[in-house]
Protein backbone atom coordinates (compact mmCIF):
# COMPACT_ATOMS: atom_id res chain seq x y z
CA UNK A 1 0.00 0.00 0.00
CA UNK A 2 2.65 2.44 0.98
CA UNK A 3 4.77 1.73 -2.10
CA UNK A 4 2.18 2.29 -4.77
CA UNK A 5 0.44 5.27 -6.29
CA UNK A 6 -2.98 5.80 -4.75
CA UNK A 7 -5.59 5.09 -7.45
CA UNK A 8 -7.38 8.43 -7.16
CA UNK A 9 -9.40 7.78 -10.32
CA UNK A 10 -11.17 4.94 -8.48
CA UNK A 11 -12.46 7.18 -5.70
CA UNK A 12 -16.24 7.43 -5.57
CA UNK A 13 -19.10 7.85 -3.15
CA UNK A 14 -19.63 4.71 -1.10
CA UNK A 15 -22.55 2.67 -2.31
CA UNK A 16 -23.56 -0.71 -0.94
CA UNK A 17 -23.44 -3.70 -3.26
CA UNK A 18 -26.76 -5.47 -3.55
CA UNK A 19 -27.15 -9.07 -4.66
CA UNK A 20 -28.75 -7.88 -7.90
CA UNK A 21 -25.91 -5.47 -8.56
CA UNK A 22 -23.33 -8.17 -7.83
CA UNK A 23 -25.02 -10.66 -10.13
CA UNK A 24 -25.37 -8.08 -12.89
CA UNK A 25 -21.73 -7.12 -12.55
CA UNK A 26 -20.60 -10.73 -12.69
CA UNK A 27 -22.62 -11.23 -15.86
CA UNK A 28 -21.35 -8.04 -17.47
CA UNK A 29 -17.78 -9.01 -16.59
CA UNK A 30 -18.27 -12.29 -18.38
CA UNK A 31 -19.62 -10.47 -21.41
CA UNK A 32 -16.55 -8.26 -21.39
CA UNK A 33 -14.35 -11.35 -21.32
CA UNK A 34 -16.07 -12.66 -24.41
CA UNK A 35 -15.96 -9.40 -26.30
CA UNK A 36 -13.09 -7.23 -25.23
CA UNK A 37 -13.92 -4.54 -27.73
CA UNK A 38 -16.96 -3.63 -25.66
CA UNK A 39 -15.69 -1.31 -23.00
CA UNK A 40 -18.62 0.93 -22.23
CA UNK A 41 -21.80 -1.06 -22.24
CA UNK A 42 -23.63 1.27 -19.89
CA UNK A 43 -25.23 -1.65 -18.04
CA UNK A 44 -22.61 -2.14 -15.36
CA UNK A 45 -22.67 -0.24 -12.12
CA UNK A 46 -20.83 3.05 -11.89
CA UNK A 47 -18.60 1.54 -9.28
CA UNK A 48 -17.19 -1.09 -11.59
CA UNK A 49 -16.69 0.90 -14.76
CA UNK A 50 -13.33 2.37 -13.87
CA UNK A 51 -11.95 -0.94 -12.69
CA UNK A 52 -13.23 -2.72 -15.78
CA UNK A 53 -11.57 -0.35 -18.16
CA UNK A 54 -8.32 -0.43 -16.22
CA UNK A 55 -8.11 -4.17 -15.81
CA UNK A 56 -9.68 -5.14 -19.11
CA UNK A 57 -6.52 -4.33 -20.97
CA UNK A 58 -4.29 -6.19 -18.53
CA UNK A 59 -5.89 -9.59 -18.57
CA UNK A 60 -6.19 -10.24 -22.27
CA UNK A 61 -5.14 -13.80 -22.93
CA UNK A 62 -5.52 -14.84 -19.29
CA UNK A 63 -8.21 -17.12 -18.00
CA UNK A 64 -10.69 -15.29 -15.82
CA UNK A 65 -10.79 -16.32 -12.21
CA UNK A 66 -13.25 -15.54 -9.45
CA UNK A 67 -10.76 -13.07 -8.00
CA UNK A 68 -10.51 -11.10 -11.24
CA UNK A 69 -14.25 -11.17 -11.91
CA UNK A 70 -15.18 -10.10 -8.37
CA UNK A 71 -12.47 -7.45 -8.41
CA UNK A 72 -14.03 -5.95 -11.51
CA UNK A 73 -17.54 -6.26 -10.10
CA UNK A 74 -16.82 -4.54 -6.79
CA UNK A 75 -14.13 -2.10 -7.78
CA UNK A 76 -12.34 -2.47 -4.46
CA UNK A 77 -9.14 -3.81 -5.97
CA UNK A 78 -7.60 -7.28 -6.21
CA UNK A 79 -6.43 -7.52 -2.59
CA UNK A 80 -9.88 -6.89 -1.13
CA UNK A 81 -11.41 -9.12 -3.79
CA UNK A 82 -9.19 -11.97 -2.59
CA UNK A 83 -9.96 -11.15 1.03
CA UNK A 84 -13.72 -11.29 0.44
CA UNK A 85 -13.49 -14.55 -1.50
CA UNK A 86 -11.45 -16.17 1.26
CA UNK A 87 -13.91 -14.82 3.82
CA UNK A 88 -16.69 -16.54 1.87
CA UNK A 89 -14.78 -19.81 2.12
CA UNK A 90 -14.12 -19.90 -1.61
CA UNK A 91 -10.95 -20.20 -3.65
CA UNK A 92 -9.76 -17.02 -5.43
CA UNK A 93 -8.25 -18.95 -8.34
CA UNK A 94 -11.53 -20.68 -9.19
CA UNK A 95 -12.01 -20.48 -12.94
CA UNK A 96 -15.13 -18.89 -14.40
CA UNK A 97 -17.53 -21.79 -15.09
CA UNK A 98 -17.76 -22.90 -18.72
CA UNK A 99 -21.54 -22.51 -18.72
CA UNK A 100 -20.87 -18.98 -17.45
CA UNK A 101 -23.20 -19.16 -14.48
CA UNK A 102 -22.16 -18.99 -10.86
CA UNK A 103 -24.13 -21.31 -8.63
CA UNK A 104 -26.42 -19.89 -5.98
CA UNK A 105 -24.33 -21.12 -3.06
CA UNK A 106 -21.27 -19.28 -4.38
CA UNK A 107 -23.19 -16.06 -4.95
CA UNK A 108 -24.84 -16.25 -1.52
CA UNK A 109 -21.50 -16.83 0.16
CA UNK A 110 -19.98 -13.92 -1.75
CA UNK A 111 -22.89 -11.64 -0.93
CA UNK A 112 -22.57 -12.41 2.78
CA UNK A 113 -18.83 -11.76 2.70
CA UNK A 114 -19.37 -8.50 0.78
CA UNK A 115 -22.03 -7.40 3.28
CA UNK A 116 -19.66 -8.17 6.17
CA UNK A 117 -16.90 -6.11 4.57
CA UNK A 118 -19.20 -3.24 3.63
CA UNK A 119 -20.67 -3.18 7.17
CA UNK A 120 -17.14 -2.67 8.43
CA UNK A 121 -16.43 0.00 5.84
CA UNK A 122 -19.70 1.83 6.53
CA UNK A 123 -18.85 1.94 10.24
CA UNK A 124 -15.45 3.39 9.40
CA UNK A 125 -16.89 6.00 7.03
CA UNK A 126 -19.58 7.07 9.49
CA UNK A 127 -16.99 7.37 12.24
CA UNK A 128 -18.71 4.88 14.52
CA UNK A 129 -15.67 2.66 14.56
CA UNK A 130 -12.02 3.62 14.63
CA UNK A 131 -10.22 1.10 12.46
CA UNK A 132 -7.50 -1.04 13.94
CA UNK A 133 -4.09 -0.92 12.38
CA UNK A 134 -1.88 -3.74 11.24
CA UNK A 135 1.75 -3.65 10.24
CA UNK A 136 2.87 -6.61 8.21
CA UNK A 137 6.44 -7.78 8.43
CA UNK A 138 8.49 -8.57 5.38
CA UNK A 139 8.65 -12.21 4.43
CA UNK A 140 12.07 -13.61 5.19
CA UNK A 141 12.07 -15.74 2.04
CA UNK A 142 10.91 -13.28 -0.56
CA UNK A 143 11.10 -15.96 -3.24
CA UNK A 144 8.29 -17.89 -1.57
CA UNK A 145 6.32 -14.88 -0.52
CA UNK A 146 2.91 -15.62 -1.99
CA UNK A 147 1.44 -18.76 -0.58
CA UNK A 148 -2.15 -18.00 -1.54
CA UNK A 149 -1.91 -15.67 -4.50
CA UNK A 150 -1.90 -17.67 -7.67
CA UNK A 151 0.49 -17.29 -10.57
CA UNK A 152 -0.99 -15.13 -13.26
CA UNK A 153 -3.13 -13.19 -10.85
CA UNK A 154 -2.65 -9.51 -10.19
CA UNK A 155 0.22 -9.47 -7.73
CA UNK A 156 0.23 -5.78 -6.85
CA UNK A 157 -1.22 -5.21 -3.42
CA UNK A 158 -3.35 -2.11 -3.42
CA UNK A 159 -5.79 -1.57 -0.59
CA UNK A 160 -8.49 0.89 -1.48
CA UNK A 161 -9.55 2.86 1.54
CA UNK A 162 -12.21 5.55 1.86
CA UNK A 163 -10.18 7.83 4.08
CA UNK A 164 -6.92 9.12 2.63
Amino acid at each position, binding site marked *: *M*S*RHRYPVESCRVFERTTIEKLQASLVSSKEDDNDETVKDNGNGSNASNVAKEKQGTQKSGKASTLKIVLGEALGYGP*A*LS*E*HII*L*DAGLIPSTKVPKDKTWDNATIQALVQAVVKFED*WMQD*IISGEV*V*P*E*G*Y*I*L*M*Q*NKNLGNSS*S*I*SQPGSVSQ*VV*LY*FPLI
Partner: protein
Amino acid sequence: MYDEFCPILLNQFKSRDYTKFETFDAALDEFYSKIESQRAEQQQKAKENTAAQKLNKIRQDQVGTLAQTDNTLL
Protein backbone atom coordinates in the same frame (compact mmCIF):
# COMPACT_ATOMS: atom_id res chain seq x y z
CA MET B 1 11.47 -5.35 9.06
CA TYR B 2 8.15 -3.67 8.31
CA ASP B 3 6.62 -4.32 4.91
CA GLU B 4 3.27 -2.52 4.73
CA PHE B 5 0.33 -1.36 6.81
CA CYS B 6 -3.42 -1.73 6.50
CA PRO B 7 -6.60 -0.94 8.44
CA ILE B 8 -7.99 -4.46 8.07
CA LEU B 9 -6.14 -7.74 8.29
CA LEU B 10 -6.73 -9.34 4.94
CA ASN B 11 -7.36 -13.08 5.04
CA GLN B 12 -4.50 -13.75 2.65
CA PHE B 13 -2.06 -12.11 5.07
CA LYS B 14 -3.15 -13.92 8.22
CA SER B 15 -0.32 -16.41 7.92
CA ARG B 16 2.26 -13.62 7.86
CA ASP B 17 3.89 -12.03 10.86
CA TYR B 18 2.11 -8.85 11.84
CA THR B 19 1.70 -6.39 14.68
CA LYS B 20 -1.74 -5.22 15.68
CA PHE B 21 -2.46 -1.69 16.92
CA GLU B 22 -5.53 -0.29 18.63
CA THR B 23 -5.96 2.36 15.94
CA PHE B 24 -4.90 2.81 12.33
CA ASP B 25 -3.29 6.12 13.30
CA ALA B 26 -1.07 4.35 15.81
CA ALA B 27 -0.02 1.86 13.15
CA LEU B 28 0.88 4.69 10.75
CA ASP B 29 2.88 6.52 13.42
CA GLU B 30 4.80 3.37 14.22
CA PHE B 31 5.34 2.45 10.56
CA TYR B 32 6.66 5.82 9.41
CA SER B 33 8.71 6.45 12.53
CA LYS B 34 10.75 3.29 11.95
CA ILE B 35 10.63 2.37 8.29
CA GLU B 36 13.37 4.80 7.20
CA SER B 37 15.82 3.60 9.85
CA GLN B 38 14.93 -0.01 9.09
CA ARG B 39 15.59 0.52 5.38
CA ALA B 40 18.89 2.24 6.11
CA GLU B 41 19.88 -0.60 8.43
CA GLN B 42 18.95 -3.18 5.81
CA GLN B 43 21.00 -1.39 3.15
CA GLN B 44 23.93 -1.18 5.56
CA LYS B 45 23.68 -4.90 6.28
CA ALA B 46 23.54 -5.67 2.57
CA LYS B 47 26.72 -3.62 2.02
CA GLU B 48 28.42 -5.38 4.92
CA ASN B 49 27.44 -8.78 3.54
CA THR B 50 28.78 -7.86 0.09
CA ALA B 51 32.05 -6.67 1.58
CA ALA B 52 32.35 -9.81 3.72
CA GLN B 53 31.76 -12.02 0.67
CA LYS B 54 34.44 -10.16 -1.29
CA LEU B 55 36.85 -10.51 1.63
CA ASN B 56 36.17 -14.24 1.91
CA LYS B 57 36.74 -14.72 -1.80
CA ILE B 58 40.05 -12.88 -1.66
CA ARG B 59 41.03 -14.92 1.39
CA GLN B 60 40.19 -18.19 -0.36
CA ASP B 61 42.10 -17.15 -3.48
CA GLN B 62 45.16 -16.29 -1.42
CA VAL B 63 45.00 -19.58 0.50
CA GLY B 64 44.79 -21.37 -2.84
CA THR B 65 47.74 -19.41 -4.24
CA LEU B 66 49.76 -20.13 -1.10
CA ALA B 67 49.05 -23.84 -1.36
CA GLN B 68 50.11 -23.83 -5.02
CA THR B 69 53.32 -21.98 -4.15
CA ASP B 70 54.09 -24.46 -1.38
CA ASN B 71 53.58 -27.35 -3.77
CA THR B 72 55.85 -25.72 -6.37
CA LEU B 73 58.65 -25.11 -3.82
CA LEU B 74 58.46 -28.68 -2.56
